[in-house]
């Protein structure tokens, strides 16, 4: 369906209202991702015994490092998106400012690409965290059954 290409083209057609809606959606998604990151970090750091016993420690250390980077990325994107949302006035003031309006649309397009890309990478990281924790849980369960 060539969605990503269409996504970027679609910005050309977005009204100020739609851009405002998208910005709010991104802010909400990024805030939720921050909550998720906190849970994953706590879990990976505190659920240490099963992780050590399942020999997944180096894998988990790598995940925690990446999670720390992603937390910073989410924060940066959240600040950028909030700033972008607050700058919407230029599209709504009724004054013709073609250059400023184009700049705003370009910024919106760039944010759309960045948020989508971040979301994809974050989902990959989440998947790896799920698999690692699930493996530790599985080994714990087997250990319990054998003891």
């Amino acid at each position, binding site marked *: 369906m060539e969605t990503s290409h269409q996504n970027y083209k679609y910005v050309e057609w977005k009204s100020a209202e739609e851009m405002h809606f998208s910005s709010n959606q991104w802010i909400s998604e990024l805030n*939720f991702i921050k*909550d998720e990151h906190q849970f994953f970090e706590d879990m990976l750091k505190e659920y240490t015994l099963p992780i050590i016993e399942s020999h997944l420690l180096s894998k988990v250390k790598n995940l925690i490092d990446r999670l720390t980077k992603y937390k910073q990325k989410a924060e940066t994107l959240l600040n950028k998106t909030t700033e972008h949302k607050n700058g919407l006035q230029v599209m709504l003031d009724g004054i013709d400012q073609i250059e400023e309006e184009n700049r705003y649309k370009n910024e919106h397009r760039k944010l759309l690409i960045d948020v989508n890309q971040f979301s994809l990478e974050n989902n990959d990281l989440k998947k790896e965290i799920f698999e690692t924790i699930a493996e530790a849980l599985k080994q714990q369960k087997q250990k319990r059954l054998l003891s």
Partner: protein
Amino acid sequence: MFDSAKKGISKKTRGKYISEISKWENSLIIVSEEIKFLGKLLSPGIFEPNIPNLNERLQQYSKKLQDLKNEEILLGKEIEKHKTGFAKELEEEQKDSLIKRTHIQLRKNINAFLKINSGLKLEIFHFTGNILKKSR
């Protein structure tokens, strides 16, 4: 699939709908993986002992997850049906009102589903995060 569109739904709406449908499909794939993970997480042996009503709480969450899974499957089928209807209607170059109505309703259902999913996920995170067995 949608290339044969000529009239009916405007180019703008078509682009928006195609993008939304793809996003919904991806969201459901992610939700499905999350449900699977959370299901594994709700296993009594990994939590601190002596938590009041632990088994009951875990069972309640498991039930809610199962309901969510059923809803996810149902929505997946609705999206597939919508995609077929969408392509057919575009090929026949009919008026767009029915497909628009279906799309808008599906959007409402999916947004409501994702909201419930996020709420339940956070609830399970908060509940399990505090009672996981710590390393001693």
